[in-house]
């Protein structure tokens, strides 16, 4: 292939090598490091003038650092007269509002009690979104002392899983507050999706390639072409080849939001479908939510499908519900396995038999820590997509699962 250069960022160098290998080109030489004051340093070691540049960087690990690195690399290539710069971002950062436990009044939790951990019960109530929870009168987390905030949380497992949260509180600086306004104002968490899209465009990206965006509407935030590849064909291939008696399995969606995704797979495989509704509100207990299984799973092999597993609270809880309802075996197929905090330990102790993940995020460490994880590679899909894009051919075939059997 001529006039093409592939650079790998520091988030997932192995994937970049695999993609380059599949395409028969060698990876472009770039040196990525940090200055002593933690600024990112990018030095591109070969000419990119009039070439098509593909930069492979996943939104994982230290997200902000990797994202800045990606932006600086795009900008460097653009001002070095590259013909076209494509950002290949298998796991897109800031694509969704992550699972941060909220207090009853809808505020994000800011401090966790470390001394209450008694083991994973997988019983924790799910996160109540801000949109549906009314704000308690008089409770203003910005003025509350940190030690009181921890007690608001229902159980300890949720609390423990966010031990990584850091809390910057600027209330120490001011005593005069706008308490007159707090009754009418509801706190809200900023959504960064459009900002990230705009930053990528302003850095100079001409094309974005990603996989299984959490929100397909994200493509609309960009003015440049976005190829949202599907992991679905690879998942179907894995199920057909590796899960015994898949023909009589049940595809389960661990939450109501993913129902569409799961039904698509269920239809392609021509198997049955079930759903777990995790936010069922009971009339007399409006602040506690319950898990509800919709469908039949007794004596069946259950295959849970989800796009992102971050804290793994969702899938481990869902697995418990499935086993309680008589499931024979529980698999989980996840596209982006972020596995932050103690997610791996949760999975090891949960009722899931196998977790199958893609390598959009480096999984080498997770494989060592957890025996239940299996990985399917996405480099073939991306390499094929890059080849077609570079040659100006249609990419539609990649959305068809029959073609994927050849990959």
């Amino acid at each position, binding site marked *: 292939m001529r006039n093409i250069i592939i650079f790998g960022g520091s988030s997932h160098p192995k994937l970049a090598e695999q993609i380059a290998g599949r395409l028969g080109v060698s990876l472009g030489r770039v040196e990525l490091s940090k200055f002593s004051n933690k*600024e990112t340093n990018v*030095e591109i070691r070969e000419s990119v003038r009039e070439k098509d540049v593909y930069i492979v960087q996943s939104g994982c690990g230290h997200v902000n650092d990797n994202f800045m690195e990606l932006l600086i690399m795009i900008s460097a290539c653009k001002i070095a007269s590259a013909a076209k710069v494509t950002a290949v971002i298998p796991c897109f950062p800031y694509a969704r509002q992550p699972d941060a436990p909220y207090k009853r009044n809808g505020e*994000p939790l800011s401090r966790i009690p470390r001394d209450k951990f008694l083991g994973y019960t997988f019983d924790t109530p799910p996160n109540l979104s801000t949109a549906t929870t009314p704000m308690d009168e008089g409770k203003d987390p910005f003025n509350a002392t940190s030690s009181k905030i921890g007690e608001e949380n229902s159980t300890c497992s949720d609390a423990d899983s966010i031990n990584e949260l850091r809390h910057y509180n*600027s209330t120490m600086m001011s005593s005069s507050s706008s308490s007159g306004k707090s009754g009418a104002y509801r706190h809200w968490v900023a959504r960064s999706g459009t900002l990230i899209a*705009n930053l990528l465009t302003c850095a100079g990206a001409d094309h974005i390639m990603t996989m299984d965006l959490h929100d397909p509407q994200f493509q609309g935030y960009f003015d440049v072409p976005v190829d949202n590849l599907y992991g679905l064909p690879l998942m179907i291939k894995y199920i057909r080849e590796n899960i015994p008696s898949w023909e009589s399995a049940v595809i389960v969606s661990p939450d109501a939001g993913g129902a569409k995704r799961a039904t698509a797979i269920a239809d392609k495989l021509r198997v049955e479908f079930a759903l777990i509704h995790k936010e069922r509100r009971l009339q007399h207990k409006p602040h506690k939510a319950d898990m509800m299984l919709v469908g039949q799973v007794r004596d069946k092999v259950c295959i849970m499908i989800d796009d992102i597993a971050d804290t793994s609270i969702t899938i481990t809880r869902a697995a418990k519900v499935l086993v309680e309802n008589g499931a024979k075996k529980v698999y989980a197929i996840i596209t982006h396995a972020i596995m932050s905090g103690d997610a791996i330990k949760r999975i090891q102790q949960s009722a899931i038999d196998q977790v199958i993940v893609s390598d959009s995020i480096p999984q080498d460490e997770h494989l060592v820590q957890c025996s239940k994880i299996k990985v399917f590679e996405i480099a073939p899909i991306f390499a094929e997509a890059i080849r077609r894009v570079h040659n100006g051919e249609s990419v539609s075939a990649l959305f068809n699962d029959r073609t994927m059997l050849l990959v």
Partner: protein
Amino acid sequence: MSTSFKGVQWAIGGKHENRRDTEGSAKVIVLKYTNQETSVTIGESVRDEDVFIIQSGCGEINDNLMELLIMINACKTASARRITAVIPCFPYARQDKKDKSRAPITAKLVANMLIVAGANHVITVDLHASQIQGFFNVPVDNLYCEPSMLKYIRTKIPNWTNAIIVSPDAGGAKRATSIADRLNLDFALIHKERKRANEVSRMVLVGDVRGKVAIVVDDMADTCGTLSMAAKTLKENGATKVYAIVAHGILSGKAIDVINNSVLEKLVVTNTIPHEDKKAICKKIDTIDISPTLAEAIRRTHNGESVSFLFSHAPE
């Protein structure tokens, strides 16, 4: 029409800032999720307000930069009237030119990112190169530390009338001569002779420092290798004492050890970058408080008054 101040990660300056402003700092919570993404919650309504967001490019620079961008964007989508980013130490300011093949001009990228996020105005202190103002299409107020530095020299350095201002490299000559002229003092320059890249082999002093107090003036002190070699050269050439006054004290890596082992009498930095922890282990560090200048600039910007006063006077 009131002003809301959002101060994040401004450990030292913020306290001083509030002393002279009518409104207190507004509330914002910044968290990091388990997957390392940043989350910002704005604690009060900013609709139709004049918002100032104070964030310095120090510490975990990429994280702080993303925090700043997300805060600006959050305020923009919350219908703020005007958003000013107050960035005392501008991040990536040193990557401002394409000095070798395929080098990124990251300062330009940062400028674009700030605009795209929604900043309408930028206030910064002692930009590494004042041409960086040209990277923006929005107004940029590049405030100077010079008046504060002059005040410090006049009040805190004994025998300053017999001092000599030294620039540790050729690039900073203009900055140093400006201070020397205002104080009516002599000027000297240190020239780095490089035999190999990234290795300073010899420092040549241009000017006479014999029997004088030498005051080295620079805009940034990062690893402090240059400063300590300059101090040694000055002492060898007969300076009685060597002071260093620097606008941005980044002091990364082994800087503190280098300072402690050098012949510097004192290293004076402004508080554009918080350095309380470094002061605890290095007795040679002294601080110039720059928050009155910033607070005055914010007040004047908000009230629509001229900021020129600050270019030649250091407010109390």
